[in-house]
């Protein structure tokens, strides 16, 4: 775990029973059946597992389109999370592109392309 401050980190949930890490939301640990989790925050350095450019979103996102959407493999936690990119205009998104976590805004995890 590459620990970061709660204000700046990428949030995961860690089961207080067995220690397994999850991408939120998670309501019940399916490894040990506990419902008791702690929030933990990672620096969120990783790479793009896959990506697409969404050009026909539904209404709420219409003005943002086109935008890239990716699944990001976060290295230290070895978990994939969904994310979008703050600087896709300057840097091309590719599978394997290195990224770092910037912020969470609403439900969106924003990553920056290296």
């Amino acid at each position, binding site marked *: 775990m590459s620990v970061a401050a709660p204000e700046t980190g990428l949030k995961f949930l860690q089961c207080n029973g067995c220690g397994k890490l999850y991408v939120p939301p998670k309501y019940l640990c399916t490894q040990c059946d506990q419902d008791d989790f702690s929030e933990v925050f990672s620096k969120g350095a990783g790479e793009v597992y896959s990506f*697409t450019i969404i050009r026909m*979103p539904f*209404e709420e996102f219409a003005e943002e389109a086109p935008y890239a959407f990716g699944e990001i493999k976060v290295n230290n936690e070895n978990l994939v999370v969904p994310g979008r990119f703050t600087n896709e205009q300057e840097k091309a998104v590719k599978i394997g592109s290195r990224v770092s976590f910037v912020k969470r805004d609403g*439900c969106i995890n924003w990553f920056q392309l290296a």
Partner: protein
Amino acid sequence: MRDVAVIGIGTTNFGLLGEMTVEEMGVRAFSDAIRDAGVEKKDIEALFLGNFTAGMLQGQETLAPMIAYSLGLRENIAAVKVEGACCSSSIGIRLGYQLIASGVHDLVLVGGAEKMTTASTARATRALSAAMDPVSESHTGYTYPGFFGLVANRYMYEYGGTIEQMGMVSVKNHNNSVSNPRARFRHRITLEEVLESRLVADPLKLYDCCPMADGAAALVLCSLERAREYSKKPVVIAGSGMSRGFRTTHETINDKGTMLSLPCTVSAAKEAFGMAKLQPGDIDVVELHDCFTIAEIVDSEDLGFFERGKGGRAVQEGLTQVDGKTPINPSGGLISKGHPVGATGCGQAYEIVKQLRGEHENQVRNAEIGLTHNAGGTGAICAVHIFKRGF
């Protein structure tokens, strides 16, 4: 457990039926199926209706008992809506199958109805995203085309698959539905037209995506022992598999280590093949869930028809053509017949029953065993059914 057969099939066309209410579509398909079976309405003991978006797009619920009333079915009946996004009506096939197999009922109606084309694309896309987890997916700007765009890019990266192979799925499925009077699209397209159509979710283009459609489809299910009273050509449900998959894309990747497979397809197929005591190589004709061209390729691998990473090449080599080794979507599939989401599963079964009766407009020669594959959500739910001639 008793054997269960399909003794009647009914449908509307799939396409633009904007003048009909969703209830009317359902009534037309169910009454068509009842007439085809030749059963008396008073003998029907349950009705399952698949529907996903009527509550959101038309503000319409409680459709199943309304349809049962409009059909003139008896008063003591369980008329139930079943919902699992694009897999909804296959849930009805499964439940109807179980009620008859277990001896509770002899005659059950199953079907689906959906009205989508009078909503704007943006609004319908939003309604479809109700099958996603809002917290981590739909409220982040993710969409279903986006999901399959991710799969397509990863498939090309890992297996060297090509956008041309995906485009060939669309060309084949359009070609297949030229002769299908129930299909939304009846015209041929070229690979160039697919590749030059506008991008929707890179690398997927417009012709890589299935169209919205209106439509309804229905089946009459009956115990095999009584099926021959009604039908000279009963079609037996030899295997029924249903599964839950994962609630999000990232949870699939984190648990299974890949997004180039829908685990729900693999587990539903395993159950259906096991029950039917059959192998993928025994299947003569397939209707599978080609909501996007890449989905047909990945599904064909998940169902065991081709090795991992070889599904794209199989399309290129013509193995999935109507005269190929494994004919896939001779109806035109979701891509060209159309995808009225809650009706799609029963629509696939309609096409397979016609194939096994030897009555299809795009007939696979000597088709005796057929398979339907219907999935919903980002791989949250799947049903696989195997049908064989009962005559």
